[in-house]
Every structure is written in C-alpha cells, then in structure tokens.
C-alpha cells in the first residue's frame, strides 16, 4: 500500500495519494512510516525537477500533496518521535514581500526532515538576528524575488555575523540569486529553485543524499 502511495505522489495523483493515505491511517497504519514514504517520494519529485523532468507546477503540487497528507498524519505522530535532520530559520528579506518561492522551499525542506521556523516576509535585519539568537538554528534560509533583496540579504548576513552568530550556515534563494550574489552577500550557498535549495541544505548539514 505504501509503495502505491509513493508512486501516486511521484506521479502527481493528488486525490489518489491523499485518499490512500487516509485509508492507510484508518486501517491503523503507522503514521511515522507513512511520513517516511512521503519524504522519499518528495525527494524523488525534487530530483525530477533538477533533472528537468518536472517543473515548478509539479513542485507546487508536490508540496500540496505533502501538506494534505501531513495534516492527516501529524496528529498521530507523538511529539519528539519524528527525528529532524536540522533546524532552520527561514524568511523573505527586508523590502521584499514575496512568499511563493519561500513557501515551496519550506514544503520541501520540511519533507526532507528539517524543522523550519518561518519568520515571514519583508523581515527586518534585526528580526533575522533575533530569530537566530533565539532558535539557534543549524541553517538560515533567506529568500528574495526582487533585485532590491540582494542588498537586504547582504545587510542581513553582515548583521548576523556581526552579532557573533557565526555557527549557522546561510543559504540564499530566489529567482534573482546566483553565484555572484552569493559572493557579494557572503552566503554559504545559493539556489534558484527549491529542489536544489534542499539538496544544498542537506549538503551543508553533511547529510547524505
């Protein structure tokens, strides 16, 4: 049954996947096992995107399917039972109010096993710094769509480092981000799509595949 669910997720059968997950849980299936299967399936969706077989529409739908199944499964998983591979503070930087890219990334990062603390959009520099102080994340993810976000990212990264918070690795993401922007802002990694972003987050954490 779980194999079938895996295939339905990878094949983007939203209705089929969600109803099968429901049936599995109703029959007393293990919610944690279900979640693991969903995670594996989401990783395959990400791979297909990176290979050019899938596009943003499939990432969006994959995220929706995952959210739909999580809603069913999460109440049945005991606190602390699901192991996390890392903690991340995530937000869209100051002066940029866009959330679509951040939200797609978040769905895939959670699916990959990250605990994501989403601090929203148009996030002031100080709020990023405070969130890092408070949550002590392994990673900080910054998103932007508009070009003004480039300098906001630079300022935010500088402020985090100046506050002595040099532990977390910083990854930047968004449509206008590239290698040049990474160098300019002082980030540790960059991605312009969610699949690559999650892969790099795992690499930054030293997690396999």
């Amino acid at each position: 049954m779980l194999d079938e669910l895996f295939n339905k997720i990878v094949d983007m059968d939203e209705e089929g996947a969600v109803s099968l997950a429901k049936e599995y849980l109703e029959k007393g299936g293990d919610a944690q096992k279900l979640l693991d299967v969903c995670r594996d399936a989401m990783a395959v969706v990400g791979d297909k995107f990176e290979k050019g077989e899938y596009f943003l529409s499939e990432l969006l739908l994959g995220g929706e399917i995952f959210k739909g199944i999580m809603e069913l499964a999460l109440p049945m998983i005991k606190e602390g039972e699901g192991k996390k591979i890392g903690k991340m503070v995530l937000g869209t930087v100051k002066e940029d109010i866009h959330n679509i890219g951040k939200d797609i990334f978040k769905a895939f990062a959670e699916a990959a096993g990250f605990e994501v603390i989403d601090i929203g959009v148009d996030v002031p520099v100080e709020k990023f710094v405070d969130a890092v102080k408070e949550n002590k994340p392994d990673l900080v993810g910054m998103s932007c769509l508009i070009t003004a976000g480039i300098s906001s990212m630079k300022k935010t990264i500088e402020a985090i480092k100046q506050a002595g918070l040099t532990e977390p690795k910083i990854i930047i993401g968004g449509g206008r981000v590239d290698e040049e922007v990474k160098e300019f802002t002082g980030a540790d990694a960059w991605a312009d799509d969610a699949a690559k972003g999650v892969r790099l987050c795992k690499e930054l954490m030293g997690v396999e595949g």
Partner: protein
Amino acid sequence: MCAKSPDELAKERLARIEAARNLEEPDRVPLSGIGGDIIPAYAGITQHEFCYDYDKAIKAIEKYLRDFPSDMPGGGFSGLDGRAFCIAFSEFPDLSPAFTLVSGPLHDALGDKYYRYPGREIDENASPQFIGGTFMQPEEYDQLIEDPVGFIAETILPRACTNLETKRKAMATWVRVGMEISKAGPAYAELGKILAELGYPSMPMGWGYAPMDIIGDFLRGISNAVLDVRRYPDKVKKAIDALTEPVIQYSLATVQGGAKIAMFPLHLNEYLSPKLYNEFYWPSLKKVIMRFYEEGVKSQVFFEGHHEPHLETILELPKGWGVAYFEKTDVVKAKEVLQGHTCIMGGIPMSLLVSGTPQEIDDFIKDLLKKMKPGGGFILAAGVNVAPANTPPENIHALIEAVEKYG
C-alpha cells in the same frame, strides 16, 4: 568631434533599434537602458516620492538619463500591471489602455489589494511590488467562462478593491481615478519632451498580455492558478479561451495611437512543463501576438525566468514577428535556435552590475558581444531591468563604454 544634435541622435538610435528588430545588423548593437530603483536613489529622492510626485520623478529620470545614456530609455514612471482593470474596461478602447500600469496615486484611489506601494503598505524606500492574491473561488470558473468581462468588472474588482466594495463607493472612486489619470497625461507629455531633448526617438508602445496570466495574477493567484491546471483542467482551458478575445480587444486599443511594438510581460511561462505550456499557456498567447502581427505591430515578449524548455515554440510564429526578451535563458543558446527568425534581447545579469567591477563588466560584455553581434538581431539589455538602489554608477558607465567599444 561635434556633439550630435538631439534629432541626429534620435535618428541614429531609432535606426539602430529598428535594424535589430528587423533582424539586420545595425551600426552597433543597441543598448536598452538600465533602469529601476537606482533612478530615484541617484537623484536622492525616496521611492515614495518617485511613485507619487510626477515633478520629482521627471527630474530624477532626466538626471539619470542625462548621465547614463543608452539607445532606449531605461527609466519611466512607476507603475504595476493593471490588466484586470484593462479587461474590465475592454469594451471602452478610449479608457482600457489607461489602466495598463497602475501608479501609486491610482492604487490609493482604488484601495486595491494587488499592489504594495512605498510609503503606504511598505517602507518609503522599498520598490513598489505586485503581490496579487486569490479573489475568485474554483466554483466560479463557470461565471468567468460565461461572461469574463462582466465577472471581472462586477464581481472580482469589488472584492479586490476596498474602494469599489459598494456601488456608492465605486462612484466616487471612478471619479477620483479619472482625475488621477488626467493628471498623468501632462506628466507623460513633459517626460516625452525631455526624452526628445535627450535624443531619444519617439517610440509609442503598445501592450499585450498572456490570457492565462490574467487568471494567475488577478483572479486565482499564481499558486492556485498553477494547481487549477491539474485540478480543473477543462475549466481553466475554457476560461483562458473566454479571456482571449477581451485581452485582444484591450491590446489592440493600446496601439490605436500608432504604436509599432507591443510589450508583453509574462508570468506563468516558467511554471509549466512543455506539455502544460503548449496545452494551456501558449495557444492563447500566440493568438494575441498574431493579432498584433496582422495589424503590422511587432511584439516584444519578456520570457521571465528560464524559458529554455519552450524555446522551440517561438519558431511557430512567422519570421520577424518581434523580439524575445529573455531573463535567465542563455541568449547565446537562444541565438542558435532563433537567429534569422526572432530578434533576441537580454544578456546582462543584474547581479553582475550590482556586484561586479568595471573591468569584469567590460570583459563580460566583450565576450558576450563577440558571440551575439554577428548577424544582428540582438538588443543588449539587463535580464531583469531593475537595478537596485545601491548599484555602483561606475558599473553602469562601464557597461555603456563597453557597448561603444565592442558593439
């Protein structure tokens, strides 16, 4: 060397641009000016002032264009896509073009939820931003299909604009909107005069839009529109079909003053697989482009993001249909596919202008133009023409000099 008169400069620039658009090799590769947040920043005014005060905006644009000349001005007044309003007014060709770009003052008058303007919802120095939203439920596709103009005008806009919520409020709002539009007229005329003094050719611009983007940008929101393609494919397809004729009506209204080129900003192209693009997005977009073509108007389509997977579809258009403006698509690769068929525009990553050195920019442009210049049909432009406020001016000078040297 004698300085050229504005008229001479304008003629030279026009010939250069037209040669490129007509797939010929001009005297040098034309440069489309760099614009964006740097324009108010360079004049020392806030984004809010730039968006709300025509006099200050005109002075800022003039100062910027004087110091950073190019073949096509990179700067103009601020405005964000207002195509839902254009569709609502599509039966009135004298009015529909006025809503193509919604300015800060129009945003205030409408009280809409589509935009965020500096000094209003966001910081006075932030860029104006389009946020869109979900103003239509999936059950309402049938109403949209049945009467797209009526549904947008009478159901969607009152939801999307607080100042159109009731008929009484709407009466006052449309009067205020009309007053604002009539203020913009003289400002545009004044800007036109300054552009002529600076040697820019008069090039009236028309506007087009991809019908499916109306659904993503103004009705269902981007994410929902993309998901709807999977969840309600037949409804989405019918809705796109229903929207196509109003989009064409509006688009033709924008060129009734004699414009020979029409700009298309695209939004959902990058989201879709080739299969979905060809099934949902492209056929109606192609129809709008072809209507312009039949009227003797070229289209300049901004293919946002990565358009590589869909490049071949451009060849379905007749040779010389217009200009493909690319953001992240590699223009050198695009040239291999499109040379002799489509004028290509783009090539400069904004990140290079923001964080590179003048020498790096010189090297980059030299290398790029070596590949792109032969055979013509190329307009050099920034992939996304929004230079951030802190873009080093020396980098833009370096770009302008490099084009003179290697173009």
